[in-house]
């Protein structure tokens, strides 16, 4: 040990008897981070072995021990090591900005996602670097992280006006397919009615798969800077997973199985092939899920049992959000870029061409839907059921055109696109 130096250090700290492994490194880290490179800090400790460890700690953290000595005072002796702060920055990023304003809350202590996005210290970037990392909103990124290569890097291509509100609503409207359906009500239907219900439920479940896969396919392509888009897609995916669950449960609960029809498979396959986000949104959200809103509404009103009605009603609620997003997104896309209109029309036409062999709803399905609505195979009921299905088909057509108009297409185009929509409904 040397004698104390003549000059004084920039600062000093008495670490007492705290040791490495017990928090001394944390204490030192805060002190050294606050110092400038090149400044000296005298670290005093009552432990001789800690003093012997200090040079090694200093070196391993990019600093250097310069000298050490022993001091004796009224409380006994203490050991001092003078350390010069190195130049290594612990984090390769600019200093954190000083603490800013707190985030706004709404009545009832509510912290809304819309407010999070709008009040964040930095606006969401419109066209971030395609290599952007997994960096939460407002975080200061350190350089040296890995590069990503996102495919979807323009916020305008993905956004819809009410997206954060819709996400928020999705969170508060969660339901549980295990307990929120009165499942026992589904038991005991006559065989032919149960077979019809199982077939319709199987059909719907098939379609829910594509509604699950389409947003799932786009989510990992979305630039990680777009937290609003990510949260929306994730909520959509979560909704659809539950739809797959609830309709599969209803299909099988009575012991009956249904067909997964090739025509349905063909239709869904062609939808999943669409690689353009806005075109997929038109095909899935506006046309497919839009048409399903009418179908689910019909089933919730005409189901032969309360469980089936509940499944349809709960899914119907979610589909309204999905359709809302699609209409709003497609309308905005066309407004921002008029060239997108022919592209959107082209996507519907191209899909229709692939599905040219499909003519009308499958007879198996038509029959099942009719029996489901009739509630029995008695001829009087069947007549009522058939009339109901005919009315549903008309309603679907009318509403589809209405939604296409709302999405920004003129009347003629809306009719044209509605005509081209898949007979499979989704």
């Amino acid at each position: 040990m040397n004698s104390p130096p003549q000059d004084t250090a920039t600062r000093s700290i008495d670490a007492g008897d705290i040791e490495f492994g017990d928090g001394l490194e944390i204490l030192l880290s805060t002190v050294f981070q606050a110092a400038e490179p090149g400044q000296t800090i005298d670290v005093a400790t009552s432990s001789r072995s800690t003093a012997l460890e200090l040079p090694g700690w200093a070196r391993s953290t990019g600093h250097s021990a310069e000298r050490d000595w022993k001091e004796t005072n009224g409380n006994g002796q203490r050991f001092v090591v003078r350390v010069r702060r190195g130049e290594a920055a612990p984090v390769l990023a600019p200093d954190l900005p000083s603490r800013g304003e707190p985030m706004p809350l709404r009545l009832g202590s509510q912290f809304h996602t819309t407010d999070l996005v709008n009040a964040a210290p930095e606006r969401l970037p419109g066209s971030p670097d395609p290599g952007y990392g997994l960096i939460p909103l407002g975080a200061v990124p350190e350089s040296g992280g890995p590069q990503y290569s996102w495919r979807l890097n323009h916020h305008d291509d993905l956004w819809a006006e009410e997206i954060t509100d819709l996400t928020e609503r999705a969170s508060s409207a969660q339901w549980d397919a295990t307990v929120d359906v009165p499942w026992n009500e589904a038991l005991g239907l006559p065989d032919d009615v149960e077979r019809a219900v199982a077939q319709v439920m199987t059909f719907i479940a098939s379609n829910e798969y594509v509604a699950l896969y389409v947003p799932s396919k786009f989510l990992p392509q979305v630039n990680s800077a777009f937290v609003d888009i990510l949260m929306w897609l994730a909520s959509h995916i979560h909704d659809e997973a539950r739809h797959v669950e609830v309709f599969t449960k209803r299909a099988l609960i009575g012991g009956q199985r249904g067909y997964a029809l090739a025509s349905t498979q063909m239709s869904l396959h062609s939808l999943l092939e669409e690689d353009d986000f806005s075109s997929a949104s038109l095909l899935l959200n506006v046309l497919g899920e839009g048409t399903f809103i009418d179908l689910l509404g019909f089933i919730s009103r005409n189901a032969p049992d309360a469980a089936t009605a509940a499944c349809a009603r709960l899914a119907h609620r979610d589909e309204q959000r999905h359709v809302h997003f699609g209409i709003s997104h497609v309308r905005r896309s066309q407004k921002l870029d008029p060239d997108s209109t022919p592209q959107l029309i082209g996507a519907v036409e191209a899909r229709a061409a692939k599905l040219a062999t499909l003519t009308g709803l499958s007879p198996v399905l038509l029959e099942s839907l009719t029996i489901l609505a009739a509630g029995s195979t008695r001829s009087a009921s069947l007549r009522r059921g058939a009339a109901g299905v005919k009315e549903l088909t008309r309603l679907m057509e009318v509403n589809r055109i209405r939604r296409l108009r709302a999405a920004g297409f003129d009347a003629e185009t809306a009719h044209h696109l509605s005509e081209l929509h898949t007979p499979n409904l989704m």
Partner: protein
Amino acid sequence: MSGPTLLVGAVAYHERVVPIWEIFREYFSARDVPVDYVLYSNYERQAEALLDGKIDIGWNTNTAFVRIRHVAGEPVRILGMRDVDSDWATLVVTRKGEGVEKVSELSGTRLALGSRDSGHAAILPLYYLAREGLDAVNDCELIRFDTDLGKHGDTGDSELRVLRAVADGEAGAGAVGAPIWASLKAKADPLISGLEVQWRSEDYYHCNFTVLGSMDRAVADRWSAALLAMDYNDPSLRYAMDLEGVKKWLPGDEKGYATLTEAMVQQGYFG
């Protein structure tokens, strides 16, 4: 203008040596002092290659450097070393509460040492302890862990065995390098939770980049300047520098090898 590609030798003491040199190779070539690298399994073979002119630059331990200088028959040059090599030290540790005031109190104990070709865990401990009044060879029972011979202690394996021997009570004290102790301490490794440092040697030099004196001076200077210009705050280098355990490269000279040279002579390493 870029000169001829220099061949650097390094010992593959760990698989991380490959990513380190892949990144360094890119760095040097961007600085117009292109290098390629050759990996050896032991420092003896690498020393031979340097002396035979098969490689231009050797990344040597202190033990290897002293040996090369001893047999070279010509002056050798140091082109740089890590910050951590400039103030390496050996620690003597015991179980907590032993209260060793002077190392001479360790007379009669069992002293654990690392590989016999490790400067910091075997050769220098004996040398420095003798200077402090402990003739460990005669007054202690030495327990040597001669693992990974040829790697000169780089793998850290023998030091971990030293620490385990002390923790288990098989040895009363043990000698290890300050860096391995600091890294175990930083991760609160339970292996050393019951141990404490009793003594720290003076600082000495550890590894360096060695070239023979016959190497073209201007080329050597340019390479050394490029090495010393590596910036730890450059994100493209931080990963490799972390793997290499360096935050700053320093020029280095021969003065920090005096004690090891004397120790190796005394302990008969040159026959």
